[in-house]
């Protein structure tokens, strides 16, 4: 279990040419409001099913994860879009981000290495 004070990083493929993203831009991608990076390239947001998920949305949006789930229930059950795919942990997210040029995910800051690009720090 990550501590409540953990710092998170939003990561992308090392070939991704984006230097950084604002919290609003990351939010738009993870809430399905925006489907491409600012450079027009297709984005594939990767969510987690771990306890880090609640912390990520709390830090990113200032809202509890239940509200994010209620938001997705509305979008999903009215046939508009599907929420991002969820992977079990940081390790799986790192692996997928390394392998997909369009991927964008989040992990605990202490797990990050130089095989991926950091787009945003959340604390």
């Amino acid at each position: 279990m990550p501590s409540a004070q953990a710092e998170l990083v939003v990561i992308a493929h090392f070939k991704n040419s984006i230097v950084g993203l604002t919290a609003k831009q990351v939010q738009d991608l993870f809430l399905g409001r925006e489907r491409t990076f600012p450079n027009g390239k297709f984005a594939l947001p990767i969510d987690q099913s771990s306890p880090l998920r609640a912390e990520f949305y709390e830090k990113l949006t200032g809202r509890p994860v239940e509200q994010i789930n209620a938001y997705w229930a509305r979008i999903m059950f009215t046939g508009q879009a599907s929420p991002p795919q969820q992977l079990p942990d940081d390790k799986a997210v790192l692996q997928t981000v390394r392998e997909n040029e369009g991927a964008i995910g989040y992990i605990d800051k202490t797990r990050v290495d130089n095989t991926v690009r950091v787009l945003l720090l959340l604390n």
Partner: protein
Amino acid sequence: MKYIILFTSAFLLFGAPAAFAKDVYPSFTVKGFGTLGASGTDTDRLGFRRDIKQSAGVTNGWGFDNDSRLGLQLDVDINKSWHATAQWVARNNTGDFFEQNLDWFFLRWRLEDDLDIRVGRMGFDVFMLSEYRNVGYAYLWMRPPHEFYAGLPVYHFDGADIAKKYAIGEGILTIKAFGGYSFFQVPITNSSNSAAQGTTVAGGKLAYEYGNWNTRIGYTYVLTNNEFAALQPLLDTLNSAEVNAVWPGAQALVRQIATKNKIVHFSSIGLAYDDGLWLAQMEASYIDSDQLNYPSVASGYFSAGRRFGKVTLYSLFGISESLHNQIELSNPLIPVPAIVELRNAVAQLPNSSRVDEKSVSLGLRWDVTEHIDLKTQWSHYWLGNNGAALWLTPAAGLTPDTVNVWSVGLDFVF
């Protein structure tokens, strides 16, 4: 329409083996939602129901039926731009258990990132919540505001819609247009039978999402294609030569009472605010109708709430008032008792579908886990004279003009 369903079914059934990694098509997902709810009132003279599609209501005897339901949704990503969705919701409703409860069944084509075209069966997007009234987890209250949503028996239609999103300023504007045909079954008052209704629908909306704000403006046109079965005996009587011999104006009433080719216009405006701590929502609508058994009505609601950790406290005020639909009646030449009785029945007709209702509610939503909430709500209703059309009314006798409704519910998504 039949072919679209067959086409989609073929995809769903024979598409290809299921796959789980992203980028591998087709990929299948099964999701669902549900509510277990119980409610009761302080009267046995009126039945409380979620909406006028329900033929059973709760009284002071309490009941589980009206708010409990279970929905299942299958999503198929066929490839990057094609997607199919089917959603079926088991619930207490009038009509065919399989067909009427199939709310979504469509193919979506994403032509570009911000442009979607869908063909098949879709939710009826007439007000802010009308497409997801069944998904209790997605909204704050025990059920959508009664004065605003209970008069809407249409849940879905078969046809097509097109939606385009534009980034404007810091927000996102959605423009949507839809059209098609809706078949739905509604209960007949004081009868165990239901009546089938066929309508042509067309409409559109503009929605703007900006930070904590959400606004929506919508318009929908509904044309009734058939005669309401429950009125047919009355129409036949008014058309008969014998009746017209004694009451020359009778036949002319048929045109006023008939439902076929009558038009209903739905116009609405809505605004919602949610900053994570405080939330508020309001909608106002005007339904302009030529139909005597669905009189023109103005409705609105306002709700405000505040979160305290996992618990949200809310209040809700609703109002709905039918406009007086007067029917012009001539007098029979000879006051034969049967004809006088018939005339009275016709004069009473607009009254049985009138809404004169106001309510205040207080409630609580507690997010127990990330996918389960518990709710409880108390509502106090004021019902005007001949204003209880959203309720189940007894065949004869007085009905109360105030009713308390208590509810508890558990909503979940999976």
